[in-house]
């Protein structure tokens, strides 16, 4: 089945009881049992809910995994997945990882005895050098947030596999439409489903997807025991959002390519970070492992004054946290997504006070460029 068809039909068979095309929203906490010895498939909604299950099956299918797990937020997916590690374990993490992931790793998991080293993941030699005997996981984003750096995922798998290290990839920016890390040999795919997967800026949710059944059982145990699950209404909304993933992504990506090219012609724009640009350092690697550069880009302006004006004067791009919605969203990583990273660390990683991140939505690209032009006039 082709991707566009799978989005409509994968994991979403018509309701056998009524024929309804929409998956019913099972707003229930528990299920009546028929037998004392053999409980039905469903016994309690934290453990299993048919609406959530339909969504999990759909996501597993799209990511070419065997199982997917839906969580209350992207951070709940990340936190729950990290609980499969043990005290004393060490993780190698890409240095410009999302601020929320950085926070949970350095403040909460460190207290539980899990250590992390942050490295420039565009360099395989830097990743290899950070591996210790107790390294159990390599945690990546490709592209990374907000600098859109690209990691050679196949190269990392070659380092990790022989050492029995688990490779985890946050695939939020790409979605399975553009990149399927499990097919590249990675072990766990993570998502903030809040972003492109749901795509309407109206749900908070997260996913973990695996290929290996044993790893699946370990995450499943935590999902049920920790209980940071996604509710039925939000599961339904995400299924609904998923149906338009391909057409949304196609449109947004096309616009992003045009905007990136236009920004490059502006004198007051110092630098544009977008893997679709031929001069982006990760351009070739991304082209070899993904089917497109995505719809998020970031750029640096010549002054803080211009940055402030841009954030406050755009009409079509909402100045807000988050990304991946039908609405374009412009955000300010230094004070938003990466506020949890100390200033010194942040600047070392290139997240400057003049950097803005643009998530391109479904508005007409001419309107978006006109809107940018009224602030970035030269």
């Amino acid at each position: 089945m082709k991707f566009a068809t799978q989005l409509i039909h994968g994991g979403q068979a018509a309701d056998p009881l009524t024929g309804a095309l929409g998956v019913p929203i099972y707003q229930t906490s528990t299920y009546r049992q028929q037998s004392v010895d053999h409980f039905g498939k469903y016994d309690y909604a934290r453990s299993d809910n048919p609406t959530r299950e339909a969504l999990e099956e759909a996501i597993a299918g799209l990511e070419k995994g065997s199982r997917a797990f839906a969580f209350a937020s992207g951070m709940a997916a990340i936190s729950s997945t990290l609980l499969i590690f043990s005290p004393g374990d060490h993780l190698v993490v890409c240095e410009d990882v999302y601020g929320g992931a950085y926070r949970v790793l350095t403040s909460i998991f460190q207290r539980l005895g899990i250590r992390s080293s942050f490295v420039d993941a565009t360099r395989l030699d830097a990743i290899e050098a950070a591996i210790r005997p107790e390294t159990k996981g390599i945690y990546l984003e490709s592209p990374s947030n907000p600098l859109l750096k690209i990691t050679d995922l196949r190269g990392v798998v070659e380092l990790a596999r022989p050492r029995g290290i688990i490779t985890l990839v946050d695939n939020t920016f790409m979605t399975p439409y553009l990149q399927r890390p499990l097919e590249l040999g990675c072990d766990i795919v993570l998502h903030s489903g809040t972003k492109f997967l749901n795509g309407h800026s109206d749900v908070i949710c997260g996913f973990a997807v695996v290929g290996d059944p044993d790893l699946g059982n370990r995450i499943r145990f935590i999902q049920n025991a920790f209980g940071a699950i996604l509710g039925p209404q939000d599961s339904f909304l995400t299924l609904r959002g998923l149906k338009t993933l391909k057409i949304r992504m196609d449109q947004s990506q096309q616009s992003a390519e045009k905007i990136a090219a236009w920004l490059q012609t502006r004198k007051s724009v110092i630098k544009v970070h977008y893997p679709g640009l031929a001069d982006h350092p990760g351009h070739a690697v991304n082209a070899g492992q993904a089917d497109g550069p995505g719809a998020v880009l970031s750029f640096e302006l010549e002054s803080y004054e211009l940055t402030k004006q841009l954030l406050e004067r755009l009409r079509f791009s909402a100045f807000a946290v988050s990304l991946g919605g039908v609405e374009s969203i412009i955000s300010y990583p230094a004070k938003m997504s990466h506020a949890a990273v100390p200033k010194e660390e942040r600047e070392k990683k290139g997240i400057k006070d003049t950097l803005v991140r643009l998530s391109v939505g479904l508005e007409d690209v001419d309107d978006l460029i006109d809107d940018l032009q009224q602030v970035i006039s030269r």
Partner: protein
Amino acid sequence: MNIGTQAVQIGLEWDTRTGAVSVPIYQTATFRHPGLGQSTGYDYTRSGNPTRQSLEDGMARLDNGARACAYASGMAAITSLLLLFRSGDHLVVTEDLYGGTCRLFDKVFDQFGLTFSYVDTSDIAAVQAALTPQTKAVFVESLTNPLLKFADIPALSSLCHDLSLLLIVDNTFLTPYLLRPLDLGADIVVYSASKYLSGHNDTIAGLVVIKDAEMAERVYYRQNAAGAVLGPQDSWLVMRGIKTLGVRLDRQQENAAKLAGWLKKHPAVTKVYYPGLEDHPGHALAKRDSRGFGAMIAFEVANHALVEQVLMKTRLISFAESLGGVESLITFPEVQTHADIPPELRARLGINNTLLRLSVGIEDCVDLIEDLRQALET
């Protein structure tokens, strides 16, 4: 204000723009900022959502705490609280804890170096004897599941406060309508809101209420960082449920008292656990600290064959996990809710293969008695 009134009033203060008496469901992931460095008070729904906050604020008032936090499930609430601790810390906990809590302690947090001592927390000397220099908290259920032991919260709190230990109380079975642990000296109260608070067997949710503002900040930090938050639809449903908490519990308790008395006289019933019965060990304590005895009953039948018979033959009373809803539910704790407790401990506690747990709903009591009568008939 009387607590019953406070419960009905939950959420009423909110929508000043339209005057709507029901809080709007803010199905949004993010919030537009008015300008750089400015915020409406809401940035991102994981961090704060007006619907969820309305529930949290209302719950903080009901329990007389500084702040409340809402989670994706009761287990997510407890897990998020456990993230307050670090490797090496020790907790003293109730021995007949809910099986899901027990599983979380023994199979997830145990491996992160947290240790737990299981004691009969209705025995203060036993709690004292279990303390070690590493002890950081005492975790009890105000009314235990399934044997309905009553905790002496004032005595536990004076012991804890002398030693600067946190006292955490799971108040799921009583709710603030009957007992307010923070008023009795506890520091943190936790709920599976899927039960009495939501009250309709249709939501999975957890709540935590914290007495002290500084501790509340630490709890909030983890709610946001680990991200196991409750979605807006489910937040709204819990508030909707809380509005009828008083009338529901009044009727449920009335039914439970009648059923407990009736069961006690039934020849096929060998033992009845209900705090409202004068010979129940916690009866005097319950009378002193609580406005009522709750609506949970556990009872033993003469032999195991009767267990299956009752579970299969009840018609109105559903054989299903969970409790606290308007519908009466019956469960078999040994294999359902408490399967994760080690068999030796289960046997010592009295959770055996003839024990049934009944969550009494708001049906007419005459019909409930008739349903049990025909189910017990040999």
